[in-house]
């Protein structure tokens, strides 16, 4: 299941706050807790945080501007359902395009994410939104739920993106399902 980017319910109140209560979410939250692989991209990441499938929250970019750029990232966790096709430490270029991408969590949560290797991807060169610890994506304890601020679906083909570096998110899940 992929929760895509966009501005669901107009991002009214907070990004993802109302989408989190969309009719499908009751079933989705239960299925995700039961192991269903779920990837939330951008607005989808915000929805996953609002629904408490992932810890923390996403706030307006520290610079207050919408940021749209080809972003260098490092994949720090290549063990999740969505990142198994990468190498841990692999550097990739994937576009980022959001207004509310600043990942925040309390100190205990950040320490827990760091020590348990649950930070899936980190921004390199520039932190585009003021995210704590340069966090671009995280996973839940089981590794089946991943939230990612950049858009891997916009980096699957050189004609339409800066690279095909995002493809790995989708080949990871396809291989996992085929081999299941």
């Amino acid at each position, binding site marked *: 299941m992929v929760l895509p980017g966009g501005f669901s319910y107009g991002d009214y109140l*907070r990004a993802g*706050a109302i989408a989190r*209560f969309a009719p499908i979410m009751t079933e989705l939250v239960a299925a995700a807790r039961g192991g269903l692989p779920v990837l939330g991209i951008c607005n989808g990441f915000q929805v996953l945080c609002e629904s408490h499938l992932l*810890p923390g*929250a996403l*706030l307006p970019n*520290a*610079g207050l501007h919408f940021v749209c750029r080809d972003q260098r990232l490092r994949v720090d966790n290549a063990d999740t359902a969505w990142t198994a096709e990468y190498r841990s430490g692999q550097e990739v270029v994937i576009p980022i395009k959001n207004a509310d991408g600043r990942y*925040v*969590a309390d100190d205990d949560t950040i320490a827990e994410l760091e020590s348990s290797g649950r930070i899936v991807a980190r921004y390199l060169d520039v932190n585009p939104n003021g995210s704590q610890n340069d966090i671009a994506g995280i996973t839940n304890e089981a590794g089946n739920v991943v939230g990612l601020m950049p858009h891997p679906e916009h980096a699957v083909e050189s004609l339409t993106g800066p690279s095909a570096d995002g493809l790995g998110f989708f080949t990871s899940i396809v291989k996992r399902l085929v081999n299941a």
Partner: protein
Amino acid sequence: MRGAAVARVVVDVMLKPEILDPQGQAIARKLPQLGFEGVAAVRQGKRFELELDGPADEAALAEVRKIAETLLANPVIETFEVHAL
């Protein structure tokens, strides 16, 4: 049964103090340029006004607190206060 005063309840939502508020900072930076001196910092929050069907009694206020923590505020990053108008 119209005619009775409508009970209104206010929910104020603020970012937790430890969380950076760039919107508040942008407002604070603008103030001196407008000639307003003496403001050390600005934090921006949200105010919701809820119109109730019945009176704002303790049960209704408890229900509004539940609404606040479920939807109006995100307890991960925000705090809220509820009071009747």
